């Protein structure tokens, strides 16, 4: 990446990651489209400025996610407004639920979807974040470790505990 000598060469990176990071920020923050675009602009400028800081100990994608996460959290702190809800497509909800519970069932009805959303929205942030990275962004434990900057063991236990909470709540709400 350090081989980029001309800003024009950087355009390919922006194009490649824009949509993914847009969705990632939206899930984390529930900011408006304009706000997310502003954050992303700052993120990519930071990535460009810090290109020499990237090392091969992690994938470039993980590094990009790490910078994006930090920038989003900074923005949330600046506004002193932790989102009370999160932006999740139905498909994402089902993904989280199925992956968390190892469910085989293909069909989830609309009523269940609302309940699932309730469960996920009410999860403590620390679980919500790692579960989304694991099951929606489909990141490995190593990648999540670098994105949220916590030891791998902590990530594994957060994922496990988050899954258990979802399982208990899903049973209580009779989704499974």
């Amino acid at each position, binding site marked *: 990446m350090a081989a980029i000598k001309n800003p024009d060469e950087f355009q390919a990176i922006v194009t490649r990651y824009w949509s993914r990071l847009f969705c990632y920020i939206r899930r984390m923050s529930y900011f408006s489209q304009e706000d997310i675009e502003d954050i992303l602009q700052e993120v990519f400028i930071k990535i460009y400025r810090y290109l*020499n800081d990237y090392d091969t100990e992690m994938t470039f994608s993980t590094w990009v996610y790490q910078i994006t996460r930090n920038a989003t959290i900074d923005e949330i702190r600046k506004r002193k407004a932790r989102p009370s809800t999160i932006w999740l497509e139905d498909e994402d909800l089902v993904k989280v639920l199925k992956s968390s519970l190892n469910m085989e069932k293909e069909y989830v009805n609309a009523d269940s979807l609302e309940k699932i959303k309730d469960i996920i929205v009410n999860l403590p942030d620390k679980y919500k974040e790692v579960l989304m990275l694991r099951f929606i962004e489909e990141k490995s434990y190593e990648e999540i470790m670098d994105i949220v900057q916590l030891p791998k063991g902590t990530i594994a236990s957060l994922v496990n505990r988050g899954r258990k909470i979802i399982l208990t709540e899903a049973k209580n709400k009779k989704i499974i």
Partner: protein
Amino acid sequence: MEKNPAQKIIEKIKQEKIVPESKIFLNWKNYLFWFIWMTTLFLGAIFFSFIILNLLDIHPSVIRQLGLGRIFFILARTAPYLWIVLAILAGVSGFLAIKKTKRGYRYSILFITSIGVLIISMLGAFLHLAKINRHMGEGKMFNRPMSRGIAFPVEKRWQDPQEGLLGGKIIKIDEEFFNLRGFDNEVWEVRYSNETEFKIRKMEENIMVAIIGEKIGEHIFKASLVLPPPFDRKPDRR
């Protein structure tokens, strides 16, 4: 026609003449925290070597002679608390420094603590074996009575004739007693007999000894066990 986001970003980079920062500029903090980590561990090792120096005088025969209960009491009274606190502080600072490095988050508390304790204790033991702690102890900084008492309670431990502990340098040997100059520069007559157990190689003048026994009079001490000293420090000359 409206530009796409990528084009807008590239334009901004060009307009504001933003360039990738150099690796050294981006990493100076990281290098600084690694340096702080190494420094704190080294300091921790020095403090640990002082702890060893202050504790290693507990010869097995001392335990036999004094009994475990009394040993614990004496140790609690004269433990090297200063060095214990400083070694812990150095370890904690090292832990915080490594957590602040670029990849510090990857290491668990258990891993960093274990590595820190291992390095401090191994390096501390090496400094002790190389007698670096003793040389440092002889330095000017520790030669004031006040600071010496806090830094080297091991010597204070052997200045307690009431408790049966006396240490210092043999200055004159007689048939049934020898004169000893203690760390507080007071001269003692130390009486010995066939019942006195000697753990030193040879009794001669100008050697340092630690004695367990009983105070039987004004500056008169009856020795029951004579040990090699835990310290090489010479008592101050008047």
